[in-house]
Every structure is written in C-alpha cells, then in structure tokens.
C-alpha cells in the first residue's frame, strides 16, 4: 500500500514542480496599423479585396502573414516584436506599389517594438477629387473630378465610373442595392462627372450609404470616394 502510494505521489509531485514553468508564448500584442495614402490622402478601396503580406524571417519556413485593407484603406495587425517586411503583391489595388527592377514588389522593412503606426505611400492611377454626394427626391446624385495621377507610359484609361448605394456601410460592386455606371468612353469632361441613381424602396430606412467607384482598365480593384451617409 505504502509503495503504491509513493509510486503515485512522487511522479505527481515531479509533474507539478516541472509544470510550474510557463510552457507557452504570450500572445502577440504589438499593433501595427496605418492606411494606404497618396501624399497624405487616404485611398479608399473595396473591403477585404486588397491584400497586404507581412514576412518575418529567421524562423525556418517562409510564408506570409496575410491581411487586407478595409474600405477606408486602413489596416492593422497584432504581431510579436521583431523585424518584418511588408509588401502589397503585384496586381493588387488601384495603385502602383514600388517594384524592384526584377518586377517583384519592393518591401518596406519594419522594426516593430510596441505599437506602431505606418502609413503606406502608393501612387494611384486616378484620384477622385471633390466628391459631392447629395440626396433628394428619391435619388442620390454625385458630382466629382477624376484626376489622372499616373501619366507616363504606364498610364491607364478609365473603364467606367459607378455610383453605388447600399443600406449598410459596406458599399461596393458586390454590396449594393442600386448602382449606375458610366463608361469611360462616355465621360465628356473628367473634371465634371455627374452620376445619379434612383433609390429603390427601402422603407422605413430614410438614408443610404453611398460611394463613387472608379474602374481603371486592366486593373481589378476600384478606387472609391470616402463613404457618405445620404438622406434622400
């Protein structure tokens, strides 16, 4: 009896003693956040459609920590302190991200030690300037300028501009209750583009959220104007 008691209690004590040591990492707690900007001005994109990738080297296999930008172009990630590299993959976003001579995306080195804010400077093909969205008489109207930012050999034309409205704050080509398109070829004056869309019956809601989207030829992601709440 005595023997079996000791034979149980001894390993148990050992186990308790040795397990006192913490066997786990603390969860990542340093926040890296910021937004995509062009000369300080935020770039609005479609929610969850424009990705970024963070790489941390020195831990064997190399894979990316993936994330994506929100509607207003912000991003945030909770990470361990350390050295990271951030890229936006080629072909993503309505803008140009710096590239190396080989064509691979250039990376931004980040030394993370505590929370950090880092805005990512990009060059958009176009910017939507002075967007004025107004509502009334069951319609939402928009007036804006499309400024061509990239004018060199890699310049691209406007495929179309669209005015999207939705009942919720997520407004895009995939999430809308009504939209109106205007083909790029039909734009007479890029400095004075107007669009107007009829609001479908959404009683009892008396307001909608609206954004203007601009589609660039050969570029997948649209650039948007900031979200506005419109009472009609």
């Amino acid at each position, binding site marked *: 009896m005595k023997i079996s008691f000791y034979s149980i209690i001894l390993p148990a004590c050992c186990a308790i003693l040795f397990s006192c040591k913490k066997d786990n990492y603390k969860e990542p707690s340093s926040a890296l956040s910021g937004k995509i900007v062009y000369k300080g001005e935020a770039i609005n994109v479609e929610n969850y*459609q424009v990705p970024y990738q963070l790489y941390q080297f020195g831990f*064997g*296999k*190399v*894979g*990316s920590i993936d994330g994506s930008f929100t509607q207003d172009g912000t991003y945030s990630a909770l990470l361990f302190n350390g050295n990271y590299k951030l890229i936006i*993959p*080629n*072909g*993503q976003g309505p803008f140009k991200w710096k590239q190396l001579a*080989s*064509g691979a995306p250039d990376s931004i080195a980040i030394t993370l030690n505590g929370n950090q804010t880092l805005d990512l400077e990009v060059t958009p093909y176009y910017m939507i300037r002075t967007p004025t969205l107004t509502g009334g008489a069951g319609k939402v109207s928009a007036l804006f300028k499309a400024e061509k930012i990239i004018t060199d050999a890699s310049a691209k034309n406007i495929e179309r501009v669209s005015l999207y409205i939705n009942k919720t704050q997520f407004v895009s*080509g*995939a999430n809308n209750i009504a939209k109106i398109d205007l083909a790029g070829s039909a734009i007479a004056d890029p400095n004075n583009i107007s669009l107007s869309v009829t609001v479908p019956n959404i009683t009892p809601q008396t307001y909608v959220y609206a954004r203007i989207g601009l589609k660039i030829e*050969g570029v*997948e992601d649209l650039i948007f104007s900031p979200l506005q709440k419109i009472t009609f």
Partner: protein
Amino acid sequence: MKKIFSITLLAILLAAGGCKKDSAFLDIPPIQVIPNEVAFSDPALVLSILGDLYNRQVDFSGLDNGWSSFTDFSESFPSENGSAFFVQRTSWGYSEWNTWDYGYIRDLNLFIQRDSAATQLSAADKSRFLAEGRFLRANYYFEMAKRMGGVPLVTSPLTYDYKGDATYLQVPRAKESDIYDFVISEAEAIKNLLPADVNEKSRATRAAALAMESRAALYAASIAKYGAATPQVSLPGGEVGIPASMAAGYYTKALNAAKEIISIADGGNGTAGNYSLYKVLPDLSDNFAAIFLDKSSVNQEAIFVEDFKAGAGKTHGFTTNDQPFSLSDEGGDAGRLDPSLNLVEAFEKLDNTFAPIPTADGSGNPIYYTHPQDIFAGRDARLAGTVMTPFDDASPYRFKGGIVDIWAGYLLGDGSILTSDEAGHLKPLPNTTTPVKVVGKDGPVNGLELRTQTGFYIRKWLDPTVGSGRRGRGSDVAFIRYRYAELLLNAAEASFELGQTTTAAAFMNKVRSRAGLTIPLTPAQVTFDRIVHERRVELAFEGHILFDMKRWRLAHIVWDGTPTNLSDLKTNIGAAAKRSTQPWGLWPYHYYNPGNPNDGKWVFREVLPSLVTGVNRFQFGNYYSFINDNIRAANPKIVKQPNQ
C-alpha cells in the same frame, strides 16, 4: 584424449557452420513485398501496378469525386444545406483547384524506369505498358498545367544522396508552354505504341493520346491568343502566360490531332479506330443522355473513360446524390445538383436563335401554359438530355418511368401565392375545405434541401438502372474524360481560329445536327461566341467550364462579382462575355382562378433561390492556383503565381 577429440570436433563443426557469410545469412527474400524484377516479369503484375496509377488520375469533375465537383460557377445550385457555401461565398480562395502531387509523378517515373529495365516481358507488352505510363504522366502534367501553369518538369525519379544538401533536387518551374509542348510531344511519341481499338476505353489508346494532345494544344493556343488581352496574368519567366506568336502553331497541332481521329477526309473513322458520334435512339434527347450511360460496343463516341463496376467494389454515389427526390431509390438521399436557369436558357431554339425561356409576353403579362412542358418546346434536344424539366412526360419517360413533380404552389386570382414550406404538403384551396397538394413532391421550396431549388434536376450521368440510386449498390455509369464530340468541337475551334470557317462550320454542324439543330450554321455564322456557347451546352457538367473560361480569359468577365438581376439574366444569351454570377431558378406555379379561362394552366417565374446570397467573383489571382508556402519554402526556386 577422447575429450580433446570431441571438443576439437565440435569446434571444427562450429567453425565450418559459421563459414556462411553474414550477408548471405541475413538476405532472406521478403514474403510480403514483391521485388521489382519479379513484379516486372509478369504482365498481370505489371497491369495491377498500372491499375493503381490509372486510379490515381486527377479529374476536376468526376463521378467518384463527389457530386459537388460538378457544382459551382452558377451552372447549377447545390441543394444540400451543408454545401450552400458554393452560392454564399463572394470569391474563390487563391488555393482553390490546386494540385501538386509529385508523389504520383515519382511513381510514374519509377514505373517507366522499371518497365524500361524489365527483361522478361514480351516486347509488345513492355512497349504498351511504357506508353501507358507515359500517357498517364503527360495527362497529369496537363492537369497541373491547367491549374498551376508551368510546373517543375521532372521526367526521371529523383534520389536523395543523404549528404545534407538537397539543392540539386530543387527544380525550378518550367515555362507554361514547355509543359504543353511536353504533353504534345509525349502524345506524338506514344500514339503508335498504343492500340487503335475503339472498344478499349478505360486504358490508354491511340485515340486517347490524340484526344489529350488535341485538347492540350487547344488550351495552349487559346492561352497564347487570349492571354494577350490580360497581360497582368503572366510572369516574366514565362511560367505563366504563352507568347501570342505561338498561337497559330498550337491551333494547327490541335486541329491535326483531332483530324487524325476524325478523318478519312473529315467524314469520320480516322486512323485511331472507328470512332463516331453516338446516334442510336430515335428520341434525340434520350440519345444524348444515353451517350453517358451506354457502355456497350455500340457506343463509339466515348474515347477514354473512368469505368466503374457494380457489385465489384468500384461504384460511385452520383445517382444516389442527384436522383429526383420523388423517384429516389434511397428515401431521403436525392436532388443535390440542380442545373440553373442560366444554363437552361442557353440551350438555343431549333431555328438557331437564342431566347430566354418565355415567362411573360411583350407587355410583361405572364404567359399561361396548358402543359408545363410547353415552355421548353422547340429547344435544342440536349436540354432534355442534360436537364430534367418539370413534368417531362415525353414517352418513354425520361428517367425510371417517372415524371418529376416540380411545382412551387398555386398562383391565385388575386396574385397571391398559396404554397407551403414542406414539399408535397396538403392545404385547402380558397373557398374549399378538402386539402390538396400545394407544392410538388420535388419542391421547389427555398432552403428545402435534397429537392430541386431551381426547378430542374440533372439528367446527365444519372443512372436509370434499378437500384443504382441505393447507397449500398451505387451506380457504375462511367465518367467520360474524352469523347468524340469534344474532338469535333476542338477541330471546329482550331479551324475557326486559323481562319478556316468553312471547315469550322462543317465540324460544328455535325455536333449540332445530332442535337436536332438541323439548320446548318453558315461559315459566316461561326463566331467566337458560337464556339464558346457550343462547348458550354454540349459539354455541360463534364468538367470543362472552369478550364474553358480560364483559357479564353473570360473567367474574370463572366464571373465578375456583380450580382445579376432579372434583366441581366434574360439578355445577351449566347454572348461569350455574358455575366453569370448567381444561379437562377425557374419555378412553375399552377394557376387557380375558377371561372377564368386560364384556370388550371401554368405560369412560370424566374427566381433567385433565397440561399444565393454570394456571387461568383473570379480575380486575376484565381487564374493560376496558389502554390502553397510549404512547397515554396522547400524549393525557393519556385516563383509565385501572378496577382497573389
């Protein structure tokens, strides 16, 4: 003295007995493993090794891949609540559709190496086995190229030397065109080593090699031609993307390979065997459905199949999963794969024109039909051969002697609808007390799984054999990987792209006349839109749509992530770039309005099933599937796919 003698004798005996070498002592032939020399001495053993390699072929849609491998792309609706994600997601992950099975490639390479080294096989067996191994290897490289673009081209088994440095085993990705060139050259090299036998369908034949070559060359050609419109889907090293200048060469190869099967000056029965279109049954729709069911020697259309055998352990559950609920062999197991109205309306009218299924007249009033079948009258016979429509009572009945009971409820005189959320439910009609059935036994009811939710059931591949719908027995309908009609369409497309529209029309009209479209297309009427359309309806649910849309670089246009409304659905039918991002349904209603001349007739409404909340959104990054991080960490020479 005697003692010494006996000790010495014992020592000598021991020493003599121990003379056997250690290696000889330990080297005992294993009893549970067959060594290579033995395995490759007997054709039956080699065939069993080859059988495993045949079984490991990768198909996109396949009868043993599960019914859901036929779903998606808005060609159908998945009527199983656990699979609703197909119509609720708003994009495809970049990893979707990837394949990277170098274990299979290694086994094929080992097979080829061992077969080449075999000494006791007859020369005929040896060369046929070798050709089959090379066929399977080329076919899998083709499958990888379709999904991943250029991949490392490994054609001999790699062996690690245990010296701690594996870099010499790291093979970079070949150019996309190199993989297609490899497939084409392998097919050319082995075609004469394989039998030209029309009755050999589940092993590689000359026609199978040529059919693979034709399809591969056609894919390469269209990637070269249409890839020019999407320069962002390419890599500077050519791992993805093929230069436009190579298009004509590939189209010519695709045409020649198809012609080798088709010819005697394109009238049929070329050098690969007596292949021809299946024209057996008088009813053209039943005839079309029978192509996929008839495994007898009468079927000279099927070229290369994955065969099954009931009662012998190789069956599949396609019929169990997709049979009509009201005709099901297996209680509650049915109805999962429901073709969409998007596909149904794409079947053209017999006068070669496109039109939506007419539910309303010019001024928007509903059209009343005496019989639910009337709305589908005068369409391509392949419609009824591919899809089961409500109350199809053509004689003999389309499936297992039954009529599918698909209707969504009563439309009352005041415009309201009397229905139920339970299929086959009884309720009294207005001003009556006797309960009557208010929804068909097959639905449609939104969210009611295992019955149709689009108003249609699949017919292609569905096995009418009694018992084939039971889980225990399963179905042994074969999956046709390559068939003669596809080669006619390959030849039509290649000739069209090479500017030979007369030949293109001739090839295409063969396929169309079999479907009852007897007014031939003139050469001027053969357009790119026609080619796209013809493949979509002829080859629906055969695993082509994704790869066809990818190679034409239409995928990001057709599945652009914009929800479709009713007018999108009903316009531009037959246009290659028509948007199809959500699967629509067509629900029949019984009109109940005593005293009205239309009482008892049928009206139809286009319905977007309520579970469809997502859209198909194909991004540039979806054109070539993601190569996962483990692969790229193990081999840093692998470059990433574009736009990912």
